[in-house]
């Protein structure tokens, strides 16, 4: 095996570790929500990230637009059939825009970002895709927990969770704080696995960052300090946010923390003065 292939395989394995929380959530949620999704949309998109790997570079970029086009045509056929513009027999190949469609879209975003994250080459892509994937699956997890605990139909639970999120955003914008947090209200059944997943993910991100760095320099000290100070500051910030959550001001608290940190980074940049900034 040549060095380039070995590096790619190691990179994919590290990305797998980074995506661990999303993978754990996918393992839990997919078998339980699969039956509520539209199978056509799910199968159309779910395998695209793997399919893309086997296609030539020239057509690789057209895979997602082509799939979206097929889905759009299918939706148009459904809309035309329902409105009577074309014969009802075309409904077979039409995709209705209803609750299963919405669930499928959520699942597809989760699956596609999860697989793309595993194959991604850049660390920032992996982290962004991990966030997208984990947060999408967390949405579905919340919906499933509501479904299980309240006895509402699954689609109602799904919409309930979505509405809670929108409400949180609304109160944040209008009143300056948010009070309806879906996952703060319910308990997740796979908490212990997810905590393990987050630890694996954190370690993998640090490994990926180390691999991404300049290998000709001795970076062990700076890395150790980064992880140590990052953990201390992160822990302290979390307690600060938790304290502020009593007043529903978590967003304000975390915003202050982030702005202070970014301001510190900008102020300490030695190139700032020499560039006349």
């Amino acid at each position, binding site marked *: 095996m040549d060095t380039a292939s070995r590096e790619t395989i190691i990179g994919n394995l590290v990305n797998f570790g980074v995506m661990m929380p999303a993978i754990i959530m996918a393992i839990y949620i997919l078998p339980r929500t699969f039956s509520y999704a539209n199978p056509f949309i799910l199968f159309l998109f779910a395998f695209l990230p793997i399919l893309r790997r086997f296609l030539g570079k020239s057509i690789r970029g057209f895979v997602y637009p082509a799939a979206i086009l097929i889905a759009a045509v299918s939706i148009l056929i459904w809309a035309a059939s329902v409105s009577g513009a074309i014969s009802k027999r075309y409904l077979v190949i039409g995709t209705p825009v209803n609750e299963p469609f919405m669930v499928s879209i959520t699942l597809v975003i989760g699956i596609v970002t999860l697989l793309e994250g595993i194959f991604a080459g850049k660390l920032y892509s992996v982290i962004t895709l991990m966030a997208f994937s984990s947060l999408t699956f967390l949405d579905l997890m919340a919906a499933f927990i509501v479904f299980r605990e309240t006895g509402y139909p699954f689609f109602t639970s799904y919409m309930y969770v979505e509405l809670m999120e929108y409400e949180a955003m609304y109160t944040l914008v209008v009143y300056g704080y948010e009070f309806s947090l879906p996952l703060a209200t319910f308990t997740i059944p796979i908490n212990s696995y997810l905590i393990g997943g987050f630890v694996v993910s954190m370690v993998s991100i640090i490994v990926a960052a180390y691999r991404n760095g300049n290998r000709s320099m001795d970076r062990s000290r*700076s890395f150790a300090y980064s992880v140590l100070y990052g953990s201390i500051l992160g822990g302290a910030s*979390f307690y600060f946010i938790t304290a502020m959550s009593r007043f529903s001001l978590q967003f304000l608290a975390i915003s202050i923390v982030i702005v202070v940190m970014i301001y510190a980074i900008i102020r300490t940049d030695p190139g700032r003065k020499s560039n006349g900034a």
Partner: protein
Amino acid sequence: MIRKSGYLILSASVYNIFESILLGYKYYIIFSIILFFVFASDILIFNLTTARLVRNIEVDISAENEKARKFSPKEFTIAFLNKNNSPTSFHYYVYSSDTFKMAGDFEGFLSLKPFERVVRKFIVTPNTIGRYRLGPVSVYTEDGMRLSVERAEVSRMVDLKVAPALSEIMAARSERISNMLYYTGIHYNKKAGQGYDFLTLREYVPGDEIRYVAWSMLGKMKGDDIYVKQMEEERIMDVLFLIDYGNGMNQGHDGKRMFDSIMADVIKTSYKIRKNQDGVGYLIWSSEVNVYIPPERTAAPIENLQKVISDLRPSGSFSLATSIDFLRRKIKKTTMMFIISSFEYDEDPASVRDLIGSFKAMFFIVNPYEFVITGDENRTLRTTLFHKQNSIMQKKREIMRRFGFRTEVVGTKDAYRKLVSSYLYAKMTNMGE
């Protein structure tokens, strides 16, 4: 300075935090906050420690002198001194021009102990004539995760004056080759008059100088006939090269630039002209460059030209009218002007014709096609240019010919041949004094 990837990672982490707070899942919130702070701490620690060290690296770049010849390797030295109290690791590289082929330690990675001095050497091989700058030396260091970088340009710049390659102009200076190629029996401008070489005999007429009487022929034909020797009068011609040194001549790519190629051919032709005892001079002209070397029947103008062009690069725009207007006040009417330009600027040819008037001029239009980058990937570009460029060149040539000027389209392969043959044509047609 935070890298693009650093900004993206911080943005992704911040997005992660906000989205996790919106969902309210506390383990995810902890995870995303710690993630953000690990990355932010990495950059902050870097800013407070390693990044401050690179500005205390002293670098000096030097060479024996600032003169170089095209294709001749020149050695440079870079000395690094770590003025920090702690060990410092950094990358470095020397800013250079694409006309330089670099070899040796012009870039690399160094780890220096406190106050340690290290010297590195590298070789620069210029492939185009002119004045170029080497340096400064850029020193940079990165954080462990490669999220930010600190860069400092820590040395002075060094000027390098590149003269034409000896390999390109030596052929013209070689006695054997020049005599073999062009100068065997081509002194066409023979005329009876004052001179040293014998031309022919004619019968004596009253008033002829007695010193020219051919006493050996006395009475050979009729018994009392007298003949006088006629001597060959040397007709000398001055050639002045008017060379466009505007941006239009700065076409081409590394190792094959229009002004560079034309200058080599002009120098070679100048040596040929000089060998024939004729004078040669130059006007290098653009809105930015104005160098006049008056015609002389020595090698001095050619040597001077080589010095001048090693300190110049084409810049600005070219105007034939202003350059000829300048020349009209400097040269005699018998001087032959060789006007060399890519003619990339809009100018009314009729006004140029009027300005030239009774002066003698020949035009050489440099074809840009030959300076288009080579390689398979540029084939389409070259094919398109070939057709377009050729027709444009032919039109330009026709316009100048219609005005009565001998005009040639020249390129890398035929510029020298066409310059020399035009010079010979001028000699044959007695254009000299």
